[in-house]
């Protein structure tokens, strides 16, 4: 796939039919069977333009399709509802040829009109989509988001099987955006009939359809027999039970009543599970595109001094913090997680050096230390991590007062620029798509540094911003020069030390003995937490 994408950029304007099957189906897979998955929180909505939660993200992936998709268990793009696509020489015009004969769950055939309708819908202000911003590079986005237009001028229906999308600027991440849930294709008549309640009666083209939903209790998906990808899904259906505490879900898994606990293994039970060989054998470990970090507010004293930010970076004992969460992470050196393209191999960042940190403080004229506040979300293990940070900083003379608050309150304090330090855990950045740009704009770029933004360190460097813009203007997202540019961006960010990158969390999922399929499907980097379309049961 990567090769194909490269060639699409280099060969230019040539139609590139892309291989229809790029995933080798598991030869042992047997169709049939139902599985049970639990979640603590309710499924808020299954509307692909709205859903942005841990629970509904992969459900929506199984109910809907977009023009692009990922090879299961990987971060490699593959075509979805588009059979092939062409990119213009300057990288601003994408022409997608749609698959023939794909039908929605209501039986109607999907056409180019549906693609246009869906993209208009997600960007219209009335929809209040949390994903609208991802589509900003499409021509006409500004007009539609200010209400000046009610359709995206950059999306044209060429014929019922062809859609042409024109961008206002080259956007290397555009194909990833087309693979986001927010870009799912929905049928107009079903949306209009359901009105604002479309999220409760979703109709898509996906591998599963919604069979039953008792709000607050249970949600059942059943196999879409007419699914356009051959051979999948394997399962007859999936029952999601909501409102289950992770500890209770684990007990039920041990009794064989649950197949996958959607919220994972509760931190308090992790050691117990890993110490039991039978249970440990059913634990699946995988990387995820996540970084946990401490923001240092460059707009507040004394973090406006580089030496102080460096001192804090040197004072944090990342290995010990990893121990606090039972070793379920690897220490981080830079904003990007290791599995993300553009990660700088061999970049060591700041080593743990309390003496050096004290020297840096003295250099800043703060040899006696200072007092500051650390904001943290109030769910386990975040307060415990905050305490470890507090101890580390206390060792160099910095007194930290911990403000442990509900998620929404921490986000508010961060957006208002009131928090000197924030531990990102529980709100941390898990990538929306596997591209290095996703860790920059809103959380480290100037665009996010205003009031209400997500750039909580208020770091804004015009020079680095310009490099980021340049990197995103490439037409090929995997171009080595582009990834090198991103690597430079993050190294330059670290030279300014607005963050303490602490760790990259590993994901641990557990499954029942009867669950089959590649382990990668259970820690799928995109279909979080499980790729439901490709897993199967063995009995």
């Amino acid at each position: 796939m990567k090769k194909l994408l490269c060639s699409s950029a280099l060969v230019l304007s040539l139609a590139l039919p892309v291989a229809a099957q790029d995933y080798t189906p598991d030869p042992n897979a047997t169709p049939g069977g139902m599985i049970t998955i639990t979640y603590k929180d309710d499924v808020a909505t299954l509307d692909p333009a709205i859903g942005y939660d841990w629970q509904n993200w992969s459900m929506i992936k199984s109910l809907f399709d977009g023009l692009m998709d990922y090879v299961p268990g990987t971060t490699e793009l593959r075509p979805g509802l588009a059979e092939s696509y062409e990119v213009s020489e300057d990288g601003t015009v994408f022409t997608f040829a749609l698959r023939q004969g794909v039908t929605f769950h209501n039986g109607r055939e999907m056409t180019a009109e549906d693609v246009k309708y869906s993209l208009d819908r997600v960007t219209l202000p009335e929809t209040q989509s949390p994903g609208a911003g991802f589509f900003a590079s499409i021509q006409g986005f500004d007009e539609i988001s200010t209400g000046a237009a009610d359709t995206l001028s950059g999306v044209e229906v060429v014929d019922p099987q062809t859609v042409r999308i024109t961008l206002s600027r080259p956007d290397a991440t555009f194909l990833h955006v087309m693979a986001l849930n927010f870009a799912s294709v929905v049928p107009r008549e079903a949306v209009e009939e359901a009105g604002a309640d479309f999220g409760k009666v979703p109709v898509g083209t996906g591998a599963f359809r919604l069979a039953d939903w008792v709000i607050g209790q249970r949600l059942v998906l059943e196999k879409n027999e007419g699914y356009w990808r051959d051979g999948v899904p394997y399962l007859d259906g999936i029952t999601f039970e909501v409102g289950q505490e992770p500890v209770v879900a684990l007990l039920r898994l041990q009794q064989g009543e649950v197949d996958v606990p959607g919220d994972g293994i509760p931190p308090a039970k992790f050691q117990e599970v890993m110490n039991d060989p039978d249970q440990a054998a059913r634990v699946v470990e995988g990387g995820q595109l996540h970084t946990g970090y401490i923001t240092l507010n460059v707009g507040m004293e004394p973090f406006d001094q580089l030496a102080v930010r460096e001192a804090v970076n040197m004072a944090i004992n990342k290995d010990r913090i990893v121990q606090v969460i039972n070793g379920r992470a690897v220490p981080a050196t830079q904003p990007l997680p290791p599995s993300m393209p553009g990660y700088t191999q061999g970049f060591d960042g700041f080593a743990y050096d309390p003496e050096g940190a004290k020297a840096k403080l003295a250099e800043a004229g703060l040899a006696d230390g200072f007092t500051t506040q650390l904001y943290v979300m109030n769910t386990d293990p975040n307060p415990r991590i905050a305490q470890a940070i507090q101890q580390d900083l206390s060792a160099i003379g910095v007194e930290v007062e911990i403000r442990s608050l509900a998620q929404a309150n921490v986000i508010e304090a961060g957006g208002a620029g009131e928090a000197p330090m924030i531990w990102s855990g529980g709100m941390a950045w898990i990538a929306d798509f596997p591209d290095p740009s996703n860790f920059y704009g809103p959380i480290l770029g100037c665009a996010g540094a205003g009031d209400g933004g997500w750039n909580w360190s208020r770091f804004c460097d015009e020079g680095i911003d310009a490099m980021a813009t340049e990197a995103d203007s490439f037409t090929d997202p995997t171009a080595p020069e582009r990834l090198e540019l991103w690597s430079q961006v993050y190294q330059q960010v670290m030279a300014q030390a607005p963050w303490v990158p602490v760790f990259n969390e590993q994901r641990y999922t557990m499954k029942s003995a009867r669950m089959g399929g590649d382990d990668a499907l259970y820690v799928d980097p995109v279909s979080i937490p499980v790729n439901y379309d490709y897993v199967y049961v063995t009995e």
Partner: protein
Amino acid sequence: MAGYLVRRIFAALMILLGVSFITFVLLYVLPADPVRQIAGRSATAQTVENIRQQLGLDQPLLVQYGRYLAGLVQGDLGRSYLQRTEVSTLIASRLPASLLLMAGGIVCELLIGLTLGVIAAIYRGRPLDQGLMVTSFVAVSAPQFVVGLLLLYVFAVQLGWFPIGGYGTLAHLVLPAVTLGIMGSGWYSRMMRSSMIEVMRQDYIRTARAKGLTRGRILFRHALPNAILPIIAMIGIDIGIFMGGIVVVESVFGWPGIGQLAWQAIQRVDIPVIMGVTMVSAAFIVLGNLLADIITPFIDPRIKMR
């Protein structure tokens, strides 16, 4: 009687109005912006502003409150910001489960509390009485989260007598109802004990004893009905206490009631849902107290309604 009722109902409505205003103001001053929860982390400033306007959250507090009240009197609780559906639908789908759990909790606390209270009163001052009173003290003090998990572990996981959480059958109800009832049962056993002891000192009990009635007949025909009276009125107040308790119990047992709904809404500043659950809970508490006041005179003619 009618005048009394009208006055009480008017007072109840005033209380509800007060609750709605206080809750609304508290949510308004809360340092958390619901619009940012809706808009998500990739939203532009324009998107955030659009949403704020569409929801009317750019209006002054009193205008917002006025709009909410206007909806409320027409039975419109608004739409959930995050679930994007009617709050009334969300509450209606979950209320039956909460009511069932509360009913189960009341039955459990009465059954356990009254029985233990009577036994303690009979064995007053003896080791059994002292043992029961210590037990009741533990029951009152034990956190429901711990009690729930303990019961779950022993009776569902180890013994397998009941399902591990969930909803649907009577077997599902037992453990959550007992968890909810245990705290109240501690109070009831103490109250029942002292009430029973008080009654046993009365002249009519001495008369009954002098008539040569059996011990059982004295206890169950003459003493118990009188001792229970002051306790009945407590049940109305319990509904209020339970409204708090169900938040914990529902989350431990995966019980699909409004407590869970409230907890999730609070986490994500879903103001219409928080308001809705608060108003419905407040209405139940007020109604419970009202019923207790109305019923008491029927049980005990000495208490007059004025």
